[in-house]
């Protein structure tokens, strides 16, 4: 009976197929169940405290055992940088020869390179010609390392007990900062670490760097408007009330008073700021006593110690100049994002999803590297559109920067030839003052790490003023009789 055997075979095949399909579906359903279970598990945001963290644990790897996701991001600051730091050619001096003239007499005329990721901050400091060939103070380590523990230790050794933490910290900061760089370097071992921005027991945000803590107190005590920092405005009101009632006035303390959103900028503002080394001991100071705007900072420098402060004397013109450092916090403070309540971390450490978990990205980097999470959370436009907007701001700023450099270089040459011709001292003083004003404005924009993006109008305003000052100085030399 071939018919029957064919039928049996067909039935067997159908059964076998049905069994295989059903078994496959069962497996698929189990996989789905497993996936749902995983997502539910992730959503619980379980936190395993494997290490008991304390103030004395500086090594980020230890913190990473409790916070593996954040640590992963932190470690990735070694990669994804457009620039090569202190080890990579070409230096900016080769790309832009005018810089050698503009910075003549300053260590930046010897070595000037693009910055790179956080992970390299200490290494790049060690290998820069600016520390190798010029004597630098321990102040540099305030931001190029994680110095908190070393400060406390030195404060303790100077006889200030743990019951006075503020005095201990400040004392240690003063001791370490005024040492020669090489000596102070032996007391620190890590670039920026978890403990700089997080309280060890709760992981709460905090600010720890002494120069910032002192600087922000002075800013709070000033009259300068800071509409983007509501807790300072509130403190000022209370400050007034205390004064009127004749009560003692507590200082502004960001760790107690700042909102969480302000803290998400303050942790960055601990270092991404304008600063100077106090004379003669080279202690690090943030110049915020008159406000955060470039003009206010310049005003502060002009009045410092009666006859004004200068970072260095220009080798060609002899003008007493200011070197702007990296005033990101100050520039951001002038921009629309700060006024809208957007913090540094919103764009540079945006929230991202890992499974069902939401974490802030500790791979700190340019927002243009992840426009979707950095920008689109607020700006509902396509990525290409957002990138084009950012790039147009940066390209316009850079075009004006190079125009300003040329104007400044021409002023330097005019001043030089004026000196050699033996122009009258009044004329030279006027041109030299113009050099100081123009250089400060150009440097403030050029050294700030956003190519104008943090505050586009402010950047262009400063460059316009810089060009005006440069041409005024040139004009003074060219026709000394006119004003």
């Amino acid at each position, binding site marked *: 009976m071939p018919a029957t055997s064919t039928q049996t075979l067909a039935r067997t095949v159908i*059964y076998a197929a049905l069994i295989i399909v059903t078994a496959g*579906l069962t497996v698929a359903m189990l996989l789905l*169940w497993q996936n*749902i279970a995983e997502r539910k598990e992730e959503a619980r945001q379980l936190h395993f405290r494997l290490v008991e963290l304390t103030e004395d644990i500086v090594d980020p790897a230890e913190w990473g055992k409790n916070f593996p996701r954040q640590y992963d991001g932190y470690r990735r600051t070694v990669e994804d940088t457009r620039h090569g730091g202190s080890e990579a050619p070409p230096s900016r001096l080769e790309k832009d020869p005018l810089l050698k003239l503009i910075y003549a007499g300053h260590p930046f005329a010897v070595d000037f390179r693009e910055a790179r990721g956080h992970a390299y901050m200490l290494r790049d400091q060690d290998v820069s010609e600016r520390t190798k060939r010029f004597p630098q103070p321990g102040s540099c380590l305030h931001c190029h390392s994680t110095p908190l523990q070393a400060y406390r230790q030195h404060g303790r050794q100077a006889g200030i007990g743990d019951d006075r933490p503020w005095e201990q910290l400040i004392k240690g900061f003063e001791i370490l900062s005024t040492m020669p760089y090489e000596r102070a370097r032996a007391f620190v071992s890590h670039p920026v670490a978890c403990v700089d921005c997080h309280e060890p027991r709760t992981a709460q945000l905090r600010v720890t760097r002494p120069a910032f803590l002192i600087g922000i107190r002075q800013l709070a005590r000033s009259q300068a408007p800071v509409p983007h920092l509501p807790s300072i405005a509130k403190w000022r009101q209370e400050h007034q009330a205390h004064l009127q009632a004749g009560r003692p006035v507590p200082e502004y303390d960001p760790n107690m008073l700042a909102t969480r959103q302000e803290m998400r900028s303050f942790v960055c503002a601990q270092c991404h700021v304008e600063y100077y080394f106090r004379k003669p001991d080279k202690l690090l100071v943030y110049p915020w006593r008159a406000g955060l705007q470039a003009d206010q900072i310049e005003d502060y420098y002009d009045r410092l110690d009666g006859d004004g402060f200068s970072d260095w004397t220009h080798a060609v013109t002899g003008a007493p100049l200011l070197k702007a450092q990296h005033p990101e916090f100050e520039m951001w403070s002038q921009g629309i994002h700060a006024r809208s309540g957007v913090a540094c971390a919103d764009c540079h450490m945006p929230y991202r999803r890992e499974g069902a978990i939401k974490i802030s990205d500790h791979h700190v980097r340019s927002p243009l590297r992840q426009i979707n999470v950095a920008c689109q*959370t607020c700006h509902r436009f396509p990525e290409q559109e957002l990138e084009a907007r950012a790039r147009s701001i940066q390209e316009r700023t850079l075009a004006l920067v190079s125009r300003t450099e040329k104007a400044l270089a021409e002023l330097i040459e005019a001043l030089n030839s004026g000196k050699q011709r033996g122009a009258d001292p009044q004329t030279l003083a006027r041109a030299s003052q113009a050099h100081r004003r123009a250089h400060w404005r150009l440097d403030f924009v050029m050294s700030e790490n956003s190519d104008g993006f943090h505050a586009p109008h402010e950047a262009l305003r400063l460059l316009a003023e810089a060009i005006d000052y440069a041409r005024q100085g040139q004009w003074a030399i060219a026709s000394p009789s006119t004003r």
Partner: protein
Amino acid sequence: MANAPKILLFILVGLLTGISGYTFHFAEGFSYLTDDPRACVNCHVMRDQYESWQKASHHAVAVCNDCHVPQEPLARLGAKLRNGYAHSQAFTLMDFHEPIRIREVNRRIVNDNCVRCHSALVAEILPHKGAADPSWNCIQCHTASGHGPPR
């Protein structure tokens, strides 16, 4: 033992039904038939949307389903099935765009629901084609009504 394959098949089908039923229960499948906004944060991906809705003006008068699904029973079920499938797939494979953005078809639904409640106010300014006109987009300007200011 001619029945052996049949019995095995029955066992397997039973197993599949049981596991599927349990998975459905485990995933809180029935909650999606309700109007409870908490169902929308079952999978936690929508936590931002849920929390921002709690802090926005419409919190007092509208839940998720008042704005995000049609109100006619059949269309409502259709939208829930369509979005339910899309969301499950996206959350299982984790292949969706960040930040999450509303699709055009769903934006139309939201728009219709704006007009449903606010028709007395907007009747005079509706375009000739009515709310179905694609150029008519309430949330282009009223961005903060449902979920507060963008953050």
